[in-house]
């Protein structure tokens, strides 16, 4: 999302004219947490479909999980239009890779490293892509899961999350994740995390998708909702016992 950095009249100072330089100064429409985990046969992702305009829950059907080539999946949080730009880069990357038609293909590790370079390069131009990305996949039986931030910080792990997910989902994953999760157990674990996020993250919406990638390929679930229970006393009267609150 572009924003006019300097809408004041054209000033020619020592730094030169910046009148036509546009950068993302802050994000406009954003998606919240994405979670990714390794499981027995591949990688699972979960993300809700909300698109927030500031703190307004403006859009309700934003797909934030996409496949990249045959072996990889990307999940994005942060500025939605920047994610769309990233998808243009990746689709072109995969197109040119396929055009070689030589039996070689980019795997999740390669795509992740590519994104790392793109993100860090953009932040060095003081024009970052305002996203936290999760990238995972499987190629030749080799599972891969990693993340990149808007300034290029990147790492691999068995389970990763962005934004609020780092605070609310990963502690649960650290306790309950293990290498031999079945698909059903993996989805159950992701839903447990997503439910916590739904309760505590104000930008989360109750409409989510699960993405799965295995050696057999990529599947994205239809959007669905989680069962919730709002009749706890603390929900009915949230300020009770919160001293000094109104």
């Amino acid at each position: 999302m572009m924003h006019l950095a300097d809408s004041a009249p054209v000033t020619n100072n020592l730094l030169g004219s910046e009148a036509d330089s546009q950068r993302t100064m802050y994000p406009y429409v954003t998606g919240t947490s994405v979670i990714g985990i390794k499981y027995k046969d591949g990688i699972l992702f979960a993300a809700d479909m909300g698109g927030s305009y500031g703190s307004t829950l403006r859009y309700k059907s934003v797909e934030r999980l996409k496949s990249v080539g045959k072996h990889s999946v990307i999940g994005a949080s942060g500025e939605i239009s920047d994610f769309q730009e990233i998808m243009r880069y990746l689709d072109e990357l995969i197109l040119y890779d396929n055009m070689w038609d030589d039996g070689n293909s980019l795997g999740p590790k390669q795509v992740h490293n590519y994104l790392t370079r793109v993100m860090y390069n953009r932040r060095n131009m003081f024009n970052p892509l305002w996203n936290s990305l999760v990238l995972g996949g499987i190629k030749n039986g080799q599972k891969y899961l990693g993340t990149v931030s808007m300034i290029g910080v990147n790492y691999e792990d068995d389970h990763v999350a962005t934004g609020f997910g780092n605070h609310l989902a990963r502690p649960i994953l650290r306790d309950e994740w293990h290498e031999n999760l079945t698909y059903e157990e993996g989805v159950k674990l992701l839903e447990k995390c997503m439910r916590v996020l739904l309760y505590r993250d104000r930008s989360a919406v109750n409409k989510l998708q699960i993405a799965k990638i295995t050696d057999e390929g990529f599947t994205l679930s239809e959007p669905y909702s989680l069962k919730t229970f709002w009749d706890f006393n603390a929900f009915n009267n949230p300020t009770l016992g919160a001293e000094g609150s109104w």
Partner: protein
Amino acid sequence: MFRNQYDTDVTTWSPAGRLFQVEYAMEAVKQGSAAIGLRSKTHVVLASVNKASSELSSHQKKIFKVDDHIGVAIAGLTADGRVLSRYMRNECINYSYTYESPLPVGRLVVQLADKAQVCTQRSWKRPYGVGLLVGGLDESGAHLYYNCPSGNYFEYQAFAIGSRSQAAKTYLERKFESFMDSSREDLIKDALFALRETLQGEKMTSSICTISILGAGEAFHVLDQETVQRLINEFEVVGEEPPADDEAAAPDAEAAAPDAAEGAAPDQGAAPMDI
């Protein structure tokens, strides 16, 4: 002086549909000292003959490491070979910076061929006068390619270029069917024997040849001179006699080796392809 009126620049066709300047560049490859390459499922061996231009000088380097998984052997203008090697090194480094993984060999070879092709279609350029044997390993296995000045490239099981390379090709043609399952040592051995064929009576010593290898779990490297001499002694690859092959299933074929080599001696091997 000139062969005809159609060879004064690269982009002029002859009425017979030929580009003479490109063909002359192909000839430059045949002038250079021989380089050979062969591969198994997992390994590639590149070898070359070292020719010093004078008693007082040392020989020029003809085998270059491009990356851990790619090496080249050249025949022709060494200076052009070095330029192209540098280009290949650059491509490999840039690829691994972006993708943190090795550049597929086939793709590098296509890029190299495209670079050579451009020189055959620009009036202010000249073709590269060098042939490159590119050996490499990637996720689809071991590969050996030959890139020539015309911009063509071919994949081979085994190949030889440079002066008197026809003799080595004859040797390789006779034996290549077993190369796929060859051990690393047997591959080196066949490289030495094939190389000897191009020597035409000269004594095989470690000082007149360079041997290099790459493969699964083995980064590209040039064997040091002591190792090469040890292998030459071990395999008895010295004299004129036919190769003392232990797995000589066909002794007749072995005996025919020097004859075949002599028959093709004046290096009249046809160009490896029609341009």
